[in-house]
């Protein structure tokens, strides 16, 4: 008889929660897998930080979920015919969360602070194009000569050389505008002008934000936003299935399980991500100096099968480094066909009838490791004897940047949605090593095109230059571009107006709402 109350309790507990709409007025994100570095924009180098910064702060410009650039704190801007001077007209009547009115002074102050070595940010790269930034960062000047605030609502920025994608750089987290006073714990309790006010940060646990009712762009549709930090993807899936989190990044390994179950499939949303999977070929090492060997490597790998079988088709075959959704992409370019015989022919022509020996480095990431093993199999079959070297991500990255690896299989995440964010870091000769070009590719013709593209103010003309630069590098084969990844999200049925962002800081949750059970389960 004593067992019955217990059963009753258990039964009551079992009815809690469930797949119905939650009783909360808080949006819960599950994407962060580690604690943000800091919430100070000047220290932003990682995705969790960048996302949180995009909630609390505004930049002069910002990205839409579709990765278009749109006005932020700058209402509009003009660029001089020579492409050197940008005049930003600032939004009036904007205040920081502490009530401080936003003016041009904050823009100048923010950029100087980010560049100032005393801030120890180290990630002011997006501001480097501003004239005088290097002198200021190096302590050779008291201020940044290219920054001027002629009146409260105007900022004039002069660049050291033209850069057509500059407005996009200003939408990056490091360029987010901070108030006058940034005390030592600013990274722990940030104050910005953004749609969400910072409330609480429990390290390795969650971040909490409340809607900014005064937001110039209109208050967010939901009161509270919580970004939970969940290191294990399987746990995030469990939290989603228990209804505790509203969106979920589907782990690569679970793609098929979600796509093949009807009720789960109904919750899926997908968008192309600006992520390239590729094998960097160090064009300065041994037999890899010969373009024919590098082309042979491209011919030897069946990327189409890899994408379909290994990645569950979650991506778009690459034929260059520019993702199809960006200006300058060429979706019709002829790819290096999968042809082992052709690969052997090229090797023989390059003077290696008995094949070559190379190392392929990769990190421990399960997807990267599996891809590497498969690529190794294809290369071996074509006479390119490949030894795999697995290291932790930090060691693998360091070795590649020092030019100590023949080949490295890795990913590249765009910082801003522009072809320049692929061409310049990955292949420009000035970006060798830590700049991102771990192929150590150096082509005068390519460099010339990249420089020309940065100067070109006409969008169509610039896209054409991007396309030729991409073609040129593709044929020089300093890498095997594998595919561009697709992000796949699970979105709870009670969530409305969430758009999967193409770039990491392109979704600020302002329009997203939670609807009642009737609407959630029609």
């Amino acid at each position: 008889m004593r067992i019955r109350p217990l059963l009753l309790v258990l039964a009551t507990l079992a009815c809690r929660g469930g797949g119905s709409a939650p009783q909360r007025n808080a949006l819960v994100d599950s994407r962060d897998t580690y604690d943000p570095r800091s919430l100070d924009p000047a220290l932003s180098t990682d995705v969790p930080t960048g996302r949180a910064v995009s909630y609390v702060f505004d930049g002069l410009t910002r990205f839409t979920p579709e990765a278009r650039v749109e006005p932020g704190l700058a209402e509009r801007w003009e660029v001089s015919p020579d492409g050197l001077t940008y005049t930003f007209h600032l939004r009036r009547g904007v205040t920081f969360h502490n009530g401080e009115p936003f003016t041009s002074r904050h823009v100048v102050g923010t950029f100087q602070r980010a560049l100032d070595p005393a801030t120890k940010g180290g990630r002011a790269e997006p501001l480097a194009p501003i004239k005088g930034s290097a002198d200021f960062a190096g302590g050779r000047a008291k201020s940044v000569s290219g920054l001027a605030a002629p009146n409260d609502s105007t900022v004039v920025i002069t660049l050291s050389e033209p850069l057509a994608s500059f407005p996009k750089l200003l939408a990056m987290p490091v360029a987010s505008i901070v108030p006058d006073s940034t005390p030592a714990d600013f990274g722990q309790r940030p104050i910005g002008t953004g749609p969400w006010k910072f409330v609480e940060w429990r390290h390795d646990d969650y971040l909490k934000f409340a809607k900014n009712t005064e937001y110039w762009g209109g208050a967010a549709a939901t009161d509270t936003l919580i970004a939970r930090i969940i290191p294990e993807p399987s746990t995030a899936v469990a939290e989603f299935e228990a209804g505790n989190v509203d969106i979920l990044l589907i782990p690569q390994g679970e793609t098929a399980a979600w796509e093949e179950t009807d009720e789960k499939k109904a919750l899926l949303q997908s968008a192309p991500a600006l992520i390239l999977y590729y094998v960097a070929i160090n064009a300065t090492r041994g037999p890899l100096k010969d373009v024919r060997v590098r082309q042979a490597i491209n011919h030897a790998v069946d990327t189409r099968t890899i994408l379909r079988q290994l990645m569950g088709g979650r991506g778009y075959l690459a034929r260059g480094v520019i993702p199809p959704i960006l200006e300058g992409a060429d979706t019709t370019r002829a790819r290096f066909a999968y042809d082992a015989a052709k690969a052997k022919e090229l090797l023989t022509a390059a003077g290696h009838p008995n094949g070559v020996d190379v190392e392929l480095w990769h990190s421990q990431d399960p997807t990267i490791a599996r891809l590497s093993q498969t690529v190794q199999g294809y290369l071996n079959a074509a006479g390119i004897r490949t030894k795999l070297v697995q290291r932790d991500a930090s060691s693998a990255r360091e070795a590649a940047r020092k030019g100590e690896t023949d080949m490295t299989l890795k990913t590249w995440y765009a910082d801003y949605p522009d072809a320049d964010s692929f061409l310049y870091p990955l292949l420009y000769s000035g970006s060798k090593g830590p700049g991102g070009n771990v192929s150590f590719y150096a082509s005068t013709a390519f460099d010339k095109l990249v420089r020309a593209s940065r100067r070109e103010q006409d969008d169509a003309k610039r896209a054409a230059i991007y396309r030729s630069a991409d073609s040129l590098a593709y044929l020089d084969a300093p890498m095997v571009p594998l595919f561009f990844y697709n992000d796949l999200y699970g979105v709870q049925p009670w969530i409305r107006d969430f758009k999967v962002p193409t770039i990491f800081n392109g979704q600020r949750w302002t329009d997203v709402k939670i609807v009642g059970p009737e609407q959630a389960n029609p």
Partner: protein
Amino acid sequence: MASFLLRRVLLAVPTLFGVLVVVFLLLYVAPGDPVQEMVGERADAETIARLRRELRLDDPIHVQFGHYAGGVIRGDLGTSYITGRPILADIAERFPKTLLLASSAMVLAAIVGITIGVASARRPGGWLDRLSLGAAYLGISFPVYWVGLLLILFFAVTLRWLPPSGYGRVEFLVLPALALGSRSIAFLARVTRSSMLEVLGSEFVRTARAKGLAERGVVVRHAFRNALIPVITVLGLDFGYYLTGSILTETIFSWPGLGRYVVNAISRRDLPAIQGSVLFLSVVFVAVNLLTDLAYAKADPRVAYE
């Protein structure tokens, strides 16, 4: 007793110094560059050189070590390269959570494990003994992350009795403590059983029974106390490991403890964070060992320290 304590504490100093040196050397020779982790995927050579200078990473190793050890002696574990926060504050925020999880797992393991052990020792070969042997094999062999995921799937996703992960009220503690403690439950049950069997077969137990004492009194008051020493050893060792290494459990249950902090620090090559937490955990480990030794004396008056 006091002199024993003093001696043990003094002996810990060279041990901890050794830990400090070994960790420092290991990190010095290990591949991976902290500055490259700080600046992210793209950086220019000038910034990297400046940061290396500021962090004194270009100094000779003995200068770097002297600088660091000097700080440690003054009680300063430095600040994180990545977050800029003081290491000590980071540890102070996370260690209580690790301690809570480890203690809960240990208490759970002690209660369940010892009870099962004593019960199976009373009827060796009985159904409970055989069942617990089977369960113990499973408990010892299943890796903790697998147990953890099963617990989440069953209790949180299917039954929805408990939250899958996170930190908060007591319901958040149940599953991770169970996952973490499962191995200890199994191990303690077996150790308690064999220790009890040995004691129950000894002559003083026969005498106690001959005196006409109730069986309950014999088992609990006479036999159990004498069977405790190996049990304390297991408890102490496991507790030390839980305090220093519940990394997998903390990861699977999104528990914001020190284990995850260390792993993150290692993957980002955050040298001060790694060194500081390893040193701190060594202190904890040494302290737990000392407490275990003291517990021996408490359990068995024949063990005395001077």
